[in-house]
């Protein structure tokens, strides 16, 4: 079985860098993007198993990412991470088809558990 593919979208480089480093240790294949536009382009080429995206970003935001992902790949799980101040929007996202959401800073261990559950099909 080939490794599961995870996409990380966050406009701050440190988030993607740290997530990539941690998740690759778990054996995932990870790609990171600093904005939604190139990420969505990439998604057109290939399916990812889990997309972890920031909610608030310049240009296309996390909600839009969620809608596009779900349209392209209904089975791909989306995990939303957001600044604590944007919690209300996150809850709104939760009503949509988001698998999980976390306020930042998010404990990497919890994110890993969430990704594992997403891959196992556990909500």
């Amino acid at each position: 079985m080939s490794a599961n593919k995870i996409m990380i979208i966050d406009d701050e480089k440190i988030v993607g860098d740290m997530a990539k480093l941690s998740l690759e240790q778990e054996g995932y294949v990870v790609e990171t993007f600093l904005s939604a536009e190139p990420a969505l382009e990439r998604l057109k080429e290939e399916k990812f198993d889990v997309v972890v995206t920031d909610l608030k970003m310049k240009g296309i935001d996390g909600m839009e990412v969620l809608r596009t992902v779900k349209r392209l790949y209904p089975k791909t799980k989306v995990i939303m991470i957001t600044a604590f101040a944007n919690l209300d929007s996150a809850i709104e996202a939760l009503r949509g088809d988001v698998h999980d959401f976390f306020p930042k800073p998010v404990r990497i261990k919890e994110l890993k558990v969430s990704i594992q559950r997403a891959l196992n099909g556990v909500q």
Partner: protein
Amino acid sequence: MKNVLEKIKSFLGTSKKEDGGSLPIKAVFKSFKEVLENNSRALEIIADMGEKLGGDYLFDINYIKGAYSELAGTVSNSLQNFDALTANKYLKLHDVFGHVDSQIKRLIYDVTPTPGVMVLSFKDITWNMFRDVGGKNAALAEMSNYLRLNIPGGFAITTSAFDEFVAENGLQERIRAIHDSSPADDRIFEEMRSLIMNGTIPEELDSAISGAVETIRETFGRDCFLAVRSSAEEEDGEHSFAGQFETVLNVPLDVKAVEDAYKKVLASLYLPGSVAYQAGLGYRIGDIKMAVGCMIMVDAVKSGVLYTVAPNGDRDIVVINSTWGLGSLIVEGQTDADMFMVKKEIEPELLGAKSGKKEFMVVNRKDGGVEKTKTSEDLAGIPSLTTEEVMELARQAVYIEKHFRKPQDIEWAFDKAGRLFILQARPLRGMEATEAGGIRHERFAEATETLMKDKGTVVQKGAGAGRVFVLRHPGEMDKFPKGSVLVSKYDSSNFVRIMPYVSAIITDVGVPTSHMASLCREFRVPTVVNAGDATRIFEHGQEVTVVIDEDGVTVYDGIVKELLKDNGKDSLKMEELYEYRKRRYVLRYISMLNLVDPTQDNFSPEGCRTLHDVIRFMHEKAVTELVVNAGRGNEIIKQHAAVKLDLTVPAGIVAIDIGGGLDISEGAGKAGFEQILSVPLRAVTRGMMHPGVWHADSVSLKVGDFFSSMIRMPDLTADRSEYVGYNVAVVSGEYLNLSIRFGYHFTVLDCYCSENARNNHIYFRFIGGATDMAKRSRRVEIISSVIRNFGFSVMVKGDLLIGRLANINRDEMEGILDQLGRLMAFTRQLDAVLNDDASVEFFAGNFMEGKYTI
């Protein structure tokens, strides 16, 4: 009625009284509490930032901005109250706070030096400026400003200066010509070197260098020389450029000479070897911006180079090459130097030494420059380093490697006074350790005996091993063997002294937001607090392996090397991320603690370098201020209703309640023990009344003239004459300041005993006595011995004793205060029977066992 009015008046009083006297005690206490509460909140934020930036969390800059903004606000609030408390005694602290705050903001908002800054003193360089000063200068500044290692003073000439020099001399065109001509021939580089050597130093740069040279003269004297070195490396030394650029040694402290040396270093960008090297690495010739470091030339007796990894890649070994005089021959590989191999064990161990011929040596010439001379036969024949020097080098090498988290190539020198200087440290490329496989320590629970499992509150995760050192009182820290596991009842910020050398820390009590805790996170020392009875479970000298993970601390018998390999692997990997390091760096201005010992000279506003320092300083001085203010019993007694305490022993205490200390009706003149609500007063008086400690044959409470002047007993005024001869307790629900005079000695006990351990303190001062000095000193010794057992740090001078204890939880503190009450009662007249030194141990031992007969 009058008293009530006074109470209200004093409560409302916000600043100095109209007559210029002191603040009312209630206002003082209110400011004190505000300082404590704000500091407490600040330390919580610092601890949270330490955790969130520790590598276990994904965080973004918004988190740092938000957390810092709250932190700065809290410290600022604390400062305002501190000013009120100390009547603006420490206004300098505002400047310090302002400076640190701007440094932090510079990091958070990623501001580099003002564009165009041409010269920066090493002490003003921070790590994020490596693009401006080059990697070598940034590393030197880091070792000096942060690691506090001995680095020669000096300054950096920035890349902005380089740009100006290039512009001033029209070199940009030439560089374009180099880019266009492919392949460029050697003549064009030779021409560049000549243009640079004959180039004009821009006026602004000239005046900046003059200023820097003048500062060196003022600071270090006129007789020093400079070493002028290239600093072109990237931040993490991706490419070392080792030996590619010019270094000019022993340059006279003269602007022209420095500028010539500067140009010589710049010109070395176009030396044939250097050009080939740059091209080989894929650089376009002319693209590298050269910063330069000018540092004071060490008058070296011996120098050399060391690697923190063996040539075969063994990372447990430090290899030191050493020779007489300057190290340039070693750097250039031209001499048969001495070699020492040291094992990086818990205590460094000399594995082997090879004596070289050291035929030639390089020395500083008196008029500048260096010369190569033949080494005298008696010197050439003996090793250039003593064993102690080898060990010192090894220890510093390990410290530097641990800090930069990569194998290091370090240049060093010992001067005539035997002082070790670090001249350069850069990462050794291609020597990164191969990764150890992840080993889960659950497996070892079966293989080796588990002494402690999943206990305590985690401060810093990780693993460490070594011999247990059970610290009974702070004075023993001098004996701490490097590499040991520190086991202590309490935590203490004094541990910072041993932090680079400690393998792990376990304390019986403590909180994860203490000063020590944030130091442990900063130094990445595996630490757990609140682990219960560690001081009883572990034996002094026993070898153990400590593993701290989310669940707490697990301790195995013996040294389990496999567990250590896994130590901090995740966070080490995070450190490899530039973005992560950059963000985390802000903690250096926040959580690092430099003010450790209040008795040291640097314990001043000027000594504060971080917010943690500022907080620590305020805390210490706030307590002092309170002790002084609350100790002015005579003034306070004029302002407040005083209540006689009706106890079962004639302690003669009157209490002044400044809020919630006594449960009595207005105007009542007396309070019994049951009416004492003040937690600390209750504990102390309970101790005094403990059966057997108070011996009835007390001396009368009169004051000898000599002693009254010496001990500054409050001279109670006539209008309050009914309180003459009484001891005064200023109390609130959580606070007690007790000034007690029993016979001819005088005790001050100041304590704050709240639910928040971090805010709690006990200050205990004891002085005087009627007997001869020897007997009085013996009594002080007994008291010192007893309170050290409770964890106090103690300072004794003759018959004066000052003991301090902080950061303990309420229950523990009540127990200690009870014991202090007993001690004060027990030792009242003890000096009279202390006829010989042996009696000190006898009575101290008896007291600890609860035997109070005299």
